[in-house]
Each structure stands twice: as structure tokens, then as C-alpha cells.
């Protein structure tokens, strides 16, 4: 794999002379304190971006409201510190209540699509079948979804990637040695330079995030984008959302005294599975069965490091290009936790956290980063009675708290995942393997790993557990005992509120969720447009 040393000649879709920039408003600089539209979309990630394009193309006057800043190509410097500060929730320091799980989530125009690693998978049919059976979700079978997957794959140029870097090659070679099936990951990129900085905002516009696709298109179709504006509450009267109350944020991410009331007959919530339920709780939205924020899933993810004699340069190249689902459905849909194997990129700051610990051993591990590979196992939560996920509650100032109790069921999956990863890594020729665990040591063979591994205690803050996928909290389905939105994603208890994002997933997906959000939202937003056109006047 060729390592690129310089980037030249890239333009910025939001540079000053572009016409669409006139329709983007920094809330902190807005003079008016009222706005109106046909449809308000709260959030501009995978759900909000997809909705905005479809609704604006249908001739509706769309107002997108985004809490984060508008950062674009010229701001993407491939610098971890700047990226985490500009583009991530809580400066990449978001976590669960007891600190057990770290959460990487976007906070910028384009949401997590700006910072994800571009892996784009269709929703597994096991997952869709389970939703239908357990939550009475209608119209979302695998065959119902195929045309929508195809439409969004075409829109975002999603195709399997073949420029595999050394870090991903380890997964491929290990699987081959063990006769475990693996595949190339489809990615949403166009003209990708194979740089490896997807997580810091794409500096070449290759990643087909919402920032460079649906959002500019919505703006060209007359939409308005209000950014640095957090929706504090939905104004609710007689089962209708009459408007939304926003607070402007300054460039240092601090609240200002500036308030804006925006009104529209139709409201779409696309604020993600943590901030969306929190907004519903702050707004005291009707919720007779107390389900808001329940069953929020994270795909808890654990990691295993491997050192090689050869250079891995895990900093460079498409971050994720190979996966194996061998262990994901091996026990069926329910039962013990299944997991997907993938690879994370290893830039210094994030690696320093993943390696855990302190002192000389940490320093030595950091010094060998260029010879280090890491593997991850993404655990599929929400498919068993033992896996209820997180509950979202509010802190005193109304910000979300993600309470995800880590139980024996989860740790059982974690233990099996470490063993699978170590076996694949040794099979690929690793000299040493170490689980990302506070007390994890380097082992020099799979035999010694299996033996020594048994001494490790698995509990909160011993294991490094991360999440880059937030799902659920406002579950979809006709079963009102547990679900809050119907199969069209309309809120059961409000007449003009739809939830178009990953928070409607009644379980986790079992794979990186962006394409699942795009396709579901594309289907539901298209249906909504039809309904609105029949229901005149708007």
C-alpha cells in the first residue's frame, strides 16, 4: 500500500463563494429569534441528512437544526486533537454512567457520518426478522428493504473496497489460515485516496458523508441549515409539537443567552440514540409506558493488540476493509452474545487510551505502534432477555446520562471474543498478543494466551470497552408496551412527530449501522412525502 505524503488541489463544498453557503446560518450570529418552515429536522447525521434531501427535493421548505459546528474540508487537518474537539460529542470523551464504556459519536454538521470509518453494511436479515417477530415491526422485511439499500448504495457510491492495508490484512490472513470466512467491506467513498483519516473528517471529500452529499443537495433545493443550535425542548400542546426551542452555542461550545423558537407543522427528530431520547425527556413528551430512553444499544466493542516483526503502519490506509461475521450468528439470533470481527485504525492518542495502563510498559507499547495491529469484536446487544442495553436519564442541567450496566451475559461474550481475536492474530503470524485489559499481558503463543487469559478478571474499568454505534432508545414497532414509534417511525403519542434515525432500532443491528439508518430513513421519508402531498394544503 502506497503511503500518500501530500494532498493538493482539493476544493471545499462550503467555501465562501458557493451559493449554498447563504443558506447556512450560525445560530450565534442570527439576529431574528423566530424561524419557520414546512418541516423542521433536528440533527444532520445519517437520519437527518437523508431526510433533508428527500423532503427538500419534494418541494418542502426544510429547516435543519444542528447542535454542532459547520466544519468542512478546509478544517479537516488529520489532527486528532482538533478533530475530537471540533467533531465529536464531549471531545471524544463521552461515556456511560459508570465509566465502563467510552462512546465515539459525532457532533457537527453531518453528524457521525463525518467521522465514521465508512463501513456500509445492509441490515442483517436475522435482525429484521427478529424485529418483525418480537416488536411487530411491519414492512421492514429483508425483501421490503432491498430496493432502499440499493437506492442508498447508489446515492453514496457504496462498493466493496479492495485497497487493503496491513492492519486489515492481518484479519484476512488469520481467517484464511483458520478457514474462517471473511469478506471485503463495502465503503461509501468516491475517489478515495486511501489515507486513513476517515475518523478525523475526510480531507479529500472522498467520503460520501451527509456533509458532502445530501446536505448540500437539500440546500440547493432551498433548505436552510441552522447550526450551533441545540434544541432544548419540543413545545407540545394537544398531542402536537407546535415548535422547538433552541439555544445558540458559541465557538467554544458554550451555551449563550440567545434563544430561537422555530415552528413548522411537521417535525422530524434525527438527533441520535442518546441526544434524541434526552430531548424527548426534557420535553416531557407523552410516554404512558415510560419507554423513552430504554433499550439504548451500543454494540459494546473490545480490542486485542498484536505485535509483528513487519511494519503494520496502522495509521494509514482505509481504516476498515475486511470483516468476518463467522462468530456473529453462530449461536442463532438469540442466546449467547455474537460478535463481528473488524479492525480499528491506530492513531497515537486513541491508541494510548486503548492500550490502557501507565508507566514503562505503556511507553514501550506506544513506541512499537508502527509494528502493532489491533482487532476489534463488536458485540451484538439487545437480542436476549439478559441484554437490555442502556437507559438514558437526565443530569441536573438536562444533558443525557447513559446508564449501561455491564452484566455477566456481556462479559461472557467479551471473554469469547478475546479468544477468537487472539487465535486469528496468532494464525496471521503475530509475535505477541495482548487483550486491551488493565491487567492484560503480552502472550507469545495462542496456547499461553489461553492459559494466562483465565487469570484476568473481567469487570467495569478492567476491560477497555468502546462504542462507535448508538442505537435505540425510541424503539419502533406496533407493540406499544415497549415501542414508541410505529412502523412508519411516527411517534405513537404525537400527531406530527417522526423519528428518523438509529434511535428507532429496537435492538442493535449487529453490524456498523450507517447504511441501516440511510435505507430505513429513505423508505420512511419517501412515504412521508407521499402522505404530505395527499394532505393539502401543507
Amino acid at each position, binding site marked *: 500500500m502506497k503511503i500518500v505524503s501530500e494532498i493538493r488541489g482539493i476544493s471545499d463544498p462550503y467555501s465562501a463563494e458557493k451559493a449554498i453557503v447563504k443558506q447556512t446560518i450560525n445560530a450565534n450570529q442570527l439576529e431574528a429569534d423566530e424561524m419557520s418552515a414546512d418541516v423542521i429536522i433536528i440533527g444532520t447525521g445519517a437520519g437527518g441528512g437523508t431526510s433533508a434531501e428527500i423532503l427538500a427535493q419534494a418541494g418542502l421548505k426544510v429547516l435543519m437544526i444542528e447542535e454542532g459546528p459547520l466544519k468542512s474540508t478546509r478544517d479537516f487537518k488529520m489532527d486528532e486533537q482538533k478533530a475530537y474537539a471540533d467533531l465529536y460529542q464531549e*471531545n471524544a*470523551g463521552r461515556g456511560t454512567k459508570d465509566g465502563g464504556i467510552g462512546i465515539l459519536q459525532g457532533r457537527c454538521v453531518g453528524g457521525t457520518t463525518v467521522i465514521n470509518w465508512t463501513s456500509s453494511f445492509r441490515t442483517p436479515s436475522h435482525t429484521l426478522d427478529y424485529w418483525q417477530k418480537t416488536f411487530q415491526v411491519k414492512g421492514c422485511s429483508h425483501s421490503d428493504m432491498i430496493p432502499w439499500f440499493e437506492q442508498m448504495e447508489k446515492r453514496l457510491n457504496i462498493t466493496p473496497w479492495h485497497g487493503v492495508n496491513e492492519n486489515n490484512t492481518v484479519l484476512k490472513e488469520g481467517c484464511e489460515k483458520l478457514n474462517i470466512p471473511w469478506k471485503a467491506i463495502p465503503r461509501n467513498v468516491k475517489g478515495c485516496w486511501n489515507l486513513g483519516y476517515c475518523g478525523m473528517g475526510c480531507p479529500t471529500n472522498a467520503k460520501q458523508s451527509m456533509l458532502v452529499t445530501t446536505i448540500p443537495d437539500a440546500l440547493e433545493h432551498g433548505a436552510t441549515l441552522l447550526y450551533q443550535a441545540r434544541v432544548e425542548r419540543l413545545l407540545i400542546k394537544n398531542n402536537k409539537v407546535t415548535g422547538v426551542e433552541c439555544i445558540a452555542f458559541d465557538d467554544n461550545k458554550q451555551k449563550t443567552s440567545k434563544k430561537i423558537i422555530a415552528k413548522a407543522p411537521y417535525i422530524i427528530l434525527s438527533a441520535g440514540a442518546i441526544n434524541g431520547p434526552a430531548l424527548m425527556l426534557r420535553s416531557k413528551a407523552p410516554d404512558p409506558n415510560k419507554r423513552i430512553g430504554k433499550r439504548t444499544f451500543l454494540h459494546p466493542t473490545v480490542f486485542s493488540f498484536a505485535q509483528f516483526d513487519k511494519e503494520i503502519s496502522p495509521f494509514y490506509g482505509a481504516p476498515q476493509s475486511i470483516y468476518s461475521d463467522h462468530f456473529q450468528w453462530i449461536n442463532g439470533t438469540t442466546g449467547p452474545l455474537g460478535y463481528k470481527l473488524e479492525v480499528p485504525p491506530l492513531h497515537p492518542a486513541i491508541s494510548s487510551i486503548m492500550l490502557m495502563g501507565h508507566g514503562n510498559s505503556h511507553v514501550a507499547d506506544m*513506541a512499537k505502534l508502527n509494528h502493532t495491529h489491533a482487532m476489534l469484536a463488536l458485540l451484538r446487544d439487545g437480542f436476549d432477555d439478559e441484554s437490555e442495553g442502556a437507559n438514558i436519564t437526565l443530569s441536573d442541567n438536562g*444533558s443525557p446520562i447513559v446508564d449501561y450496566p455491564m452484566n455477566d451475559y456481556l462479559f461472557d461474550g467479551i471473554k469469547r471474543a478475546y479468544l477468537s481475536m487472539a487465535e486469528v492474530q496468532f494464525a496471521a503470524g503475530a509475535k505477541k498478543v495482548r487483550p486491551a485489559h488493565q491487567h492484560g499481558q503480552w502472550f507469545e503463543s495462542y496456547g499461553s494466551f489461553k492459559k494466562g487469559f483465565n487469570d484476568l478478571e473481567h469487570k467495569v474499568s478492567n476491560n477497555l470497552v468502546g462504542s462507535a454505534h448508538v442505537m435505540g432508545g425510541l424503539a419502533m414497532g406496533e407493540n406499544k408496551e415497549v415501542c414508541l414509534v410505529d412502523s412508519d417511525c411516527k411517534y405513537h403519542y404525537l400527531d406530527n412527530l417522526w423519528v428518523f434515525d438509529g434511535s428507532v432500532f429496537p435492538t442493535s443491528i449487529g453490524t456498523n449501522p450507517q447504511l441501516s439508518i440511510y435505507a430505513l430513513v429513505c423508505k420512511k421519508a419517501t412515504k412521508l412525502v407521499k402522505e404530505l402531498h395527499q394532505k393539502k394544503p401543507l
Partner: protein
Amino acid sequence: MKTSRRYFFKVGLLGSAVLLAGSSLSAFTRVKSSKNNLPKLAFLSVSDTELLLALAPIVLKANYPGSLEKEAEHRLLLAIDTQILSLGEHSKKQLQQLFDLLGSPTLRYLAGGPSNDWTTASTDKIEDFLDDWKNSLFALKRTGYAALCKLITMNWYTQPENYAQASYPGPPKIYPPQDKP
């Protein structure tokens, strides 16, 4: 050097009680940093900076202060302060309680920290403190340890001058965007 479970249990229980006390004790006067050689900080108090600067050489060992030399303290504290400011209310409060606990001479000692000030604590004492918390039976201490290490390592290795310590050659160079064809 295995410590008996019984010893752990006693120390652990005490530690837990102390941590709980710390959580209802946020009435500390948090003196904002104003030392001449330190940056203007929005969250960290003088006592918090003393703790972090005492831990940094133990956590980062030979990598600290590295090529940043005299700038190391300044850069590290500023980056940590900025990061904490962006955290949600819940995490911010927890960190504040952690810093308050470790800033209070009595509670710090009861929780396994050094009896004297962080600025004069010996390397051995600080190592013992970190190991005690890392190995604790109590999740609060383990999480506290993890949080302190994360804050220090993450904000250290984001500094471009320290990339070499991670055998990272750095990102490609970007030349100014050329919008006109």
C-alpha cells in the same frame, strides 16, 4: 508480591466510603490556576494541576517532558482543561469530585494517596497510589485510575511533537485548497 484478599477487602471498603464522602463534598473552594508559569485554565484548579503534573512523569515516564521540554506542562494542562470543558454535566461532576477528593489532604490519604502534598510526594508513593487504584476491588477507584491515565496519555500523544514517541510519522501535508479551477 500478592496482597491478600483480606487486606484488599479492608482497604477497598474504606476507599469506597471515602469516595462516597468525596461525592457529597463539592463545597471546596476551587482556586483557579493563576501561577505565572501556567496557562489560564477554565476548569482545573491549582490543586488539580498539582495532581496532574505529579502524575504525568509517572504515567509517561521517559516520554515526559520529551522534546516539548519547558512547554510540556503548559501544553498538557491546557489540552486536558479544554477536553474536560467539553464533557457532559455528569462526567464533569464526577471528575470534579475525583479532583476534590485527591486535593483534600485527609481524604487523599484515606483513599490511598500520599500523605503529603502532590508536589512533594515521592515517585514511589505516586506509583503505589496508581497501582492501588488500578488493582482496587472497587469500581469507583478503577474508573478514577482509568480516567486520570486517559486524560494524561490522550492529551499527551495528540501533541504533534510527541508523534515520534508513538513511532507515528504524522499525516500527509495539505497544500492550500484551490477552489478555482
